[in-house]
């Protein structure tokens, strides 16, 4: 598994994803519509990685835990409480940029 080119296939087949707090992993999983549990290791992580994980938890999109609470989380989790993650809107950016540059 170590260095697969893409986890997309595995992601599509999964029912639940347990991941570290890397932004790419989190966002890819959420966009695929899979329930996600984020395991936070404060010792290893950049502070800023935590920001996204915490925000996603606040917004109800993921469950967070740390290594020692993972088993408990898995036992007591209620995945139906997780809210779907709306997709980003690059079209808003395109509109903004067109206006800024002066394209009609």
């Amino acid at each position: 598994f170590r260095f697969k080119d893409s986890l997309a296939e595995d992601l599509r087949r999964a029912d639940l994803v347990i991941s570290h707090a890397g932004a790419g992993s989190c966002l890819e999983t959420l966009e695929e519509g899979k329930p996600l549990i984020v395991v936070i290791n404060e010792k290893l992580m950049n502070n800023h990685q935590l920001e996204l994980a915490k925000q996603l938890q606040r917004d109800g999109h993921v469950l967070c835990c740390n290594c020692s609470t993972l088993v408990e989380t898995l036992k007591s989790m209620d995945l139906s409480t997780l809210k779907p993650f709306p997709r980003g809107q690059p079209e808003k950016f395109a509109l903004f940029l067109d206006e800024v540059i002066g394209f009609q």
Partner: protein
Amino acid sequence: TGGHTTEILRLLSCLSESYSPRHYILADSDKMSEVKIRSFEEKRSETLSSSQFTLHRIPRSREVRQSWTSSVVTTLYSMLYSFPLTYKLKPDLILCNGPGTCVPVCISALLLRLLGIKRTIIVYVESICRVETLSLSGKILYYFSDYFIVQWPDLKEKYPKSVYLGRIV
């Protein structure tokens, strides 16, 4: 690099054909991004009339968590490449989203502006990962970009001159 490339390609995904030719500037150590960019451009050319794009490489200006003082040195070194490149391309628009690579390029564009050679619009989009704090590139370019876009409301509050459009990637 990695996440930055994915994000910037998403930003480009809805741009019209007017945004051509496109010049992608990558760090010389970046292998993955070239693959992603080529794949994006190939897909794009299926629906939009084929337009030009070119990849350029400059030395990486900063490693993750590299110290501040040595970062200044490596950034200056990158500028030996980014300045002639920016001078040659004289871009109308620079779009960047935070990897260290963008700093020497933007500084080069600012120099060209100061020298009266070219007036480039600099648009910076902070990464979706940045919810409460700005990246180092963001902190620098907040003052030097023409438009500074953030993707979370907390940042809009902290950095009032920024633009908040919601999540755009």
